[in-house]
């Protein structure tokens, strides 16, 4: 292994919170007691939760040490396919922490909330423009929540036409959330296979689309990183049977300013602000999954909606056909502030450029690695490309082992074993924010891992060696769950 980013530093161990501390310590400046005690009936009071007592320094060291065991996009390249781990500009964090945004109470009178409502209203307009749609709700908390919102809208739409349809078409390349969201809404997901080119064929859709099918869920570009080139015809076919076309916008990062889903037959779609619009993923969330719709679906959007009346922004409940509410309040506002700030600092030119560069970077990785790793579909890709471990079969080296070894080189592994249609998939999404130098280092690392697979496979089987933790026993974790200390 030649010189790489991956090295070991001084990593400090740290016990669990309750293995530290001492009774009576407190890391919180308790507010002054300026009123008399007024004890509650002891029937109602408990002993208080069994929390450890820690000092401020105890807490600060604890979390600082924990954070050094984590790899984030600020640490290095994070080419996790379909997750769009692009750099999250610091300036957006600053805006979200402004006192007005961070401290706003959702139920205070609207006259005290104008800035928050204006921001939401404008963000809705920007997202509508980017997707070519007519109206937007910012309420869903994440992509899957957006899908659920979308499914509810589809259900309500059909109901308004006096029909209740039981099925929905979901391609085999879809994220697991698609069938799960459809099922949660009472739809029976109908799988269709992608063709030899890795995309949906019109025939496959026509074959299953009937008058009991509510519509289709399409991820475009799909999870193989390919543009669904038959989308317009597919949409026409679905529409001709009275169905709707739902777009999963997880991969919007490839096509900002290049394709508008509203222009090519998509009736409604969700976006992931924590992917395409650069808000940080926080180790699993919070995200935000706005749903954008064409005008015929606008009446069904969740309430309340931001409206403007006499130069005042208001929250209106006056939409009788609405599906209802998906969250108690208006969605993950803190995430919206970051996305809004991102769009304002990018403008149309840079959003389009971001997409163009994300596609360039992915195609570059694809070309540079396709001799070393088996490329599932050898054709121009969009913002991500999918390899597999087929070439490494001979050495009995798997995708998982190559992924683990990448950590020793200082990279977060790509998405692995997804999409399911590619056996042993390695899905790489470099994003636009990686420089050529960084991408070259990643390519070199993977190439040298491929060599190691032939010459020193043990290195891969033992990997990772340089991380805080060695390979984890996940089977034991599931067999004897220990979920609390």
């Amino acid at each position, binding site marked *: 292994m030649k010189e790489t980013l991956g090295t070991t530093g001084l990593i400090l161990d740290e016990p669990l919170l309750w293995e530290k501390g001492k009774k009576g310590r407190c*890391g919180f400046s308790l*507010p002054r*007691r*300026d*009123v008399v005690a007024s004890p509650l*009936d002891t029937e109602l009071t*408990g002993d208080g939760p069994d929390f450890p007592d820690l000092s401020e320094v105890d807490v600060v060291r604890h979390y*600082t040490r*924990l954070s*050094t065991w*984590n*790899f*984030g996009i600020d640490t290095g390249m994070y080419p996790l396919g379909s997750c769009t781990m692009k750099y999250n500009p610091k300036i957006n964090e600053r805006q979200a922490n402004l*006192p007005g945004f961070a*401290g*706003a*109470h959702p139920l*205070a009178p609207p006259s005290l*909330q*104008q*800035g928050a409502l*204006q921001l939401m209203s404008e963000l809705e307009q920007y997202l509508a423009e980017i997707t070519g749609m007519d109206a937007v709700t910012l309420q869903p*908390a*994440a992509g899957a929540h957006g899908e*659920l919102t979308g499914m509810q809208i589809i*259900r309500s739409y059909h109901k308004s036409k006096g029909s209740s349809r039981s099925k929905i078409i979901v391609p085999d390349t879809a*994220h697991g*959330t698609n*069938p*799960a969201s459809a099922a*949660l*809404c009472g739809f029976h*997901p109908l799988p269709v296979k992608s063709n030899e080119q890795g995309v949906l064929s019109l025939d496959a859709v026509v074959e299953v689309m009937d008058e009991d099918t509510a519509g289709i869920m399409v991820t475009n570009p799909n999870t193989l990183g390919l543009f669904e080139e038959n989308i317009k015809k597919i949409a026409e076919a679905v529409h001709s049977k009275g169905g709707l076309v739902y777009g999963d916008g997880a991969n919007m990062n490839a096509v900002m*300013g290049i394709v508008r889903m509203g222009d090519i037959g998509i009736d409604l779609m969700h976006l992931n602000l924590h992917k395409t619009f650069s808000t*940080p*993923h*926080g*180790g*699993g*969330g*919070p995200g935000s*999954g706005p749903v954008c719709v064409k005008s015929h679906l606008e009446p069904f959007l969740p309430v309340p909606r931001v409206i403007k009346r006499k130069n005042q922004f208001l929250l209106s409940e006056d939409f009788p056909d609405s599906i209802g*509410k998906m*969250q*108690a309040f208006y969605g993950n506002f803190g995430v919206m502030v970051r996305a809004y700030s991102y769009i*304002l600092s*990018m*403008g*149309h030119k840079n959003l389009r450029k971001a997409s163009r560069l994300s596609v*360039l970077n992915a195609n570059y990785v694809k070309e540079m690695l396709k001799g070393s790793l088996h490329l599932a579909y050898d054709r*121009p890709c969009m913002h991500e490309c999918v390899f597999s471990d087929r070439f490494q079969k001979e050495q009995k080296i798997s995708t998982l082992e190559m992924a683990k070894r990448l*950590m020793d080189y200082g990279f*977060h592994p790509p998405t692995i074993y997804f999409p399911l249609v590619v056996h042993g998939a390695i899905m790489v999404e470099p994003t636009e924010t990686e420089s050529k130098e960084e991408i070259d280092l990643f390519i070199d690392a993977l190439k040298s891992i491929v060599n190691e697979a032939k010459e020193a496979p043990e290195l891969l089987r033992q990997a990772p060696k340089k991380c*805080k933790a060695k*390979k*984890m*026993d996940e089977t034991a*974790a599931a067999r004897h*769950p220990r979920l*609390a200390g």
Partner: protein
Amino acid sequence: MLKVVGADSLDDLFSSIPEDCRHKPNLHLPEPLTEWELNDFMAELSDTIAVSPQYSMFVGAGSYEHHIPATVSSLAGRSELVTSYTPYQPEISQGTLQGIYEYQTLAARLLGMEVANASLYDGASALAEALLMSIRITRRKKVAISSLIHPLYRRVVKTYLGPAGFELVELPYLANGRTDISKLGAINDLAAVAVQSPNFFGCIEDLQAIGKKAHEKEALSVTAFTEALAYGLLKNPGSQGSDIGCGEGQSLGIPQSFGGPGLGMFAGKMKYVRKMPGRLVGQTVDMDGKRGFVLTLATREQHIRRAKATSNICTNNSLCALTAAMYMASVGHTGIRELAGLNHDKCEYLKKGLEKAGFKITFDSPTFNEFVVKFPVGFETAYERLLEKKIVAGLSLATYYPELSDHYLLCVTETKTKEDMDELIKELGNY
């Protein structure tokens, strides 16, 4: 790079997109702002929003103003925690994983439950998921929910449960501000009985009696909450026989942020863990036998089980959960007890002060940090005048409970001083 990929221009890269699918004109978006222009613009927007300390807010109702220590904001902003993805690769995600395992533990201890998940979106969606879980466990299709559960939560529940064909029965409330469970006996085939405590009127429910009644009907007892801090002082749901505790954790160090992101807390019994929604972190060992943490029991989840998953949730509110753990670790056992007590005592101070000033406290059940008061007919104009004095005198209940026009829900947390409350009482006395 273009040469390597065999393209002459960036446009060539998009040749797989049919011509008639491409968007030719520029997007109609504002010109890009520099960092400094953006800062000015955003500060201007933010300044139009009324917040403490310029305003004295006596509104809670699901979003609570609490002090957030500088340590929590600073630690929760550490970029290794903020800019990582879901910890699918445990070897380089031990920070998030141990942090979430600790959160699960502290959340379970707060609620008196055996197991808490790694978070859901917010309190309302957590309640909806709890009811769906009860339906899965009991294979029944009907749930009873208290009319004193936050009205907005009930609407979310309706949205989640309606399309799948499940039935909701609403339980009325009593004159003392608690849920009326007397009619429960007559309702059959219930999957769950759900109440909120402290409820929307701030009153503390008799969870033990409700749990008992639910179990008599072989239904699950679900306790929701909007104010997690209350369990620093009150008996927790688990000790009172609840099967699921679920609700909003925003009070635990998370900014109000116009209602989101918050923290959907969800905890229950180990025997139901395989029916639980959401991610779970478990303890295990690595190849060297050293303690470590991984995402586990994933076979419940959408990426494995697809249409048969226990929930469709993928992205959750992980960083908010981690923030809550930082907060719970900072206050500790000693601190949370004192802090929760202070919330209660301050709220009692205002309640008694208003009573003395001649206002009627509508419900006489004990409360935590919120209560309902009746103001004179036509109080709306006084409310507006108070706004000019930068006082927000609670939340009008007229929209949510039409029978309670002229009633307001007031909230007092540790952030309010005696002077703030005296001023409110004085101003109200003037009208």
